[in-house]
């Protein structure tokens, strides 16, 4: 009845629904639209990063630099704005820096046949170091546009609020879905993750695609950095430490195969939402140690990795799970 390839996403969605109902039964104010929409606002920057990470992992790679890119973008944005630069110049500039940085890593990975793990690890140290060099102290952003955007949104009944962050997330998600499923770039990404050698034989432009994937990931991380600067109205060099690991966990919980070639962008969103819901549940409970969030995520990742082993015995049998 349900295609096997949809199972991981459905299991994640099922767990989300179960935890939501569980919380709603236990705590006043949990089972509300407000809490549901808060998940989108509070995890928007993580979700945008994880969407970029999905493309990387689908292609069989990994990007460890995203957390540091967020911090660097945030700090640079804050410093430039406080120095009086106009927003219309600052935002495109930091996005271009992010994209170029990712493209550079993609070049190293492709042309020098280096491990993505090592290249992006170096990228992570580089970006985190640069962030601290730009400003050691956290820089507050005082700007009327920031106040306006943070206040902007749609207030629904029950104090549920669709924030600018949530809207931005939905836009990025829509773009990513089109790119993954209705554009040639997406086909190439899946093909490379399925089997890089045959992808090359099938005339997939591997160089262009690899560079594109890492540029996209860093670009989205830079965008997440701007969103994070709105979320906290500041830039801080030590922000988003370890966020790359949360993003990878979300991608795995969302049903994407860590070795690539198989998975869905939408699954990643559900994965991020599930992780956020666990955190919300623990905050509502108030007596559970919040480190339980990590334990639950660890167990979930483990379950999903095992589940993938069982549900997808051979990739040859299922073929590309793209459609």
């Amino acid at each position: 009845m349900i295609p096997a390839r949809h199972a991981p996403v459905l299991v994640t969605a099922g767990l989300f629904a179960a935890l939501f109902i569980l919380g709603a039964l236990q705590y006043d104010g949990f089972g509300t639209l407000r809490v549901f929409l808060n998940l989108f606002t509070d995890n928007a920057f993580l979700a945008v990063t994880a969407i970029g990470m999905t493309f990387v992992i689908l292609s069989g790679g990994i990007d460890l630099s995203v957390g540091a890119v967020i911090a660097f973008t945030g700090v640079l944005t804050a410093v430039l704005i406080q120095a009086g630069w106009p927003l219309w110049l600052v935002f495109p500039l930091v996005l271009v820096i992010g994209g170029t940085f990712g493209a550079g890593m993609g070049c190293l990975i492709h042309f020098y046949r280096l491990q993505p793990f090592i290249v992006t690890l170096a990228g992570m140290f580089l970006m985190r170091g640069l962030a601290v060099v730009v400003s050691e102290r956290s820089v507050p952003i005082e700007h009327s546009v920031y106040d306006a955007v943070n206040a902007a949104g749609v207030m629904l009944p029950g104090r549920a609020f669709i924030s600018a962050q949530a809207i931005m997330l939905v836009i990025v998600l829509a773009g990513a879905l089109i790119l993954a499923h209705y554009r040639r770039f997406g086909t190439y990404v899946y093909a490379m993750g399925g089997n890089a050698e045959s992808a090359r034989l099938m005339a997939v432009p591997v160089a262009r695609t690899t560079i594109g994937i890492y540029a996209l990931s860093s670009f989205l991380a830079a965008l997440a950095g701007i969103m994070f600067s709105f979320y906290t109205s500041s830039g801080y060099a030590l922000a988003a430490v370890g966020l790359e690991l949360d993003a990878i966990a979300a991608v795995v919980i969302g049903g994407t195969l860590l070795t690539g070639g198989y998975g869905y962008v939408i699954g990643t969103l559900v994965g991020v939402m599930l992780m956020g819901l666990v955190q919300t549940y623990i905050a509502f409970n108030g007596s559970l140690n919040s480190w339980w969030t990590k334990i639950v995520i660890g167990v979930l990742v483990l379950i999903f990795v095992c589940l993938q082993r069982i549900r997808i015995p051979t990739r040859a049998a299922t073929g590309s799970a793209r459609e």
Partner: protein
Amino acid sequence: MKQLITLIVSAIAIAGCGSGSSEGGADDQLTVGFSQVGSESGWRTSFTQAVQAEARDRGIDLKFSDAQQKQENQIRAVRSFIAQGVDAIVIAPVVETGWKPVLTEAKRAGIPVVIVDRNMALEDDSLYLTRVASDFVEEGRKAGRWLMEETGGDCDIVELQGTVGATAAIDRMTGFNEVIANYPDAEIVMTQTADFTRARGKEIMETFLRAMDPADICAVWAHNDEMALGAVIAMKEAGIDPGDDILVVSVDAVPDIFKAMADGDTNATVELSPHMGGPAFDAIEAHLRGESVEKLISVNGDLFTQETAAEEYQKRTAG
């Protein structure tokens, strides 16, 4: 699939049964959300426990959230508290900046916020009810004065700084430097951040010992006890007698430092009082009664030396 659904349904049923009795407290019971930085040091843990004990004594339902040193976790927790409709929120912030959006939301929801420990950079002081804090600058001064008296104002000091940008690090440095500025022979010869942790304290101290002749170092000034304890290990491994060859002065007064002082490994510590829960809850209760509250409540600690260390250690570990 069917099995999964059965499992979920039964889990819900079990949880549903268990929840009814535990959540149904008296209506007039105060619910307070407390967002803590993390559990990175011994002092932080005593602070958390002091607040939890204080809440228990007063019959307050305390919702506790450990942010694991991340501001985004703190903002999420505070927003969860707001959605839950708690009566008040206590925040011990990770960093100074970035609180305006979430505090504005709390204000709109009519929930008073008390800032404890580290500061927040806010222009609009209507966003919070009050701030309960130690006077970090005074702590730095106390440590500086003690060291200057001990050495007669002639001392080459190495400094272990706290986390970059943290109020405690900035203010303690300010207070200490203010005092030693009056002594021309006292000087900070090397300074680096060790993130308030023991492991980093040891690492940075090792670097210091390699970078210069240990005989030229007169004292270690650490922004907290954990880093001082790390430095003690580094010095012992290098064959130096800490507390004798090199003086060690720090801030916080966690139980472990009293043991180190009793053993003669460190020399002095300034107490950072972990009892900030009491004044915070006092302020919240006064506010809910309709009384006005001061915007800053200061908590002060004393300086302890080796003389009373053994006694203090017993007192602090017994309770």
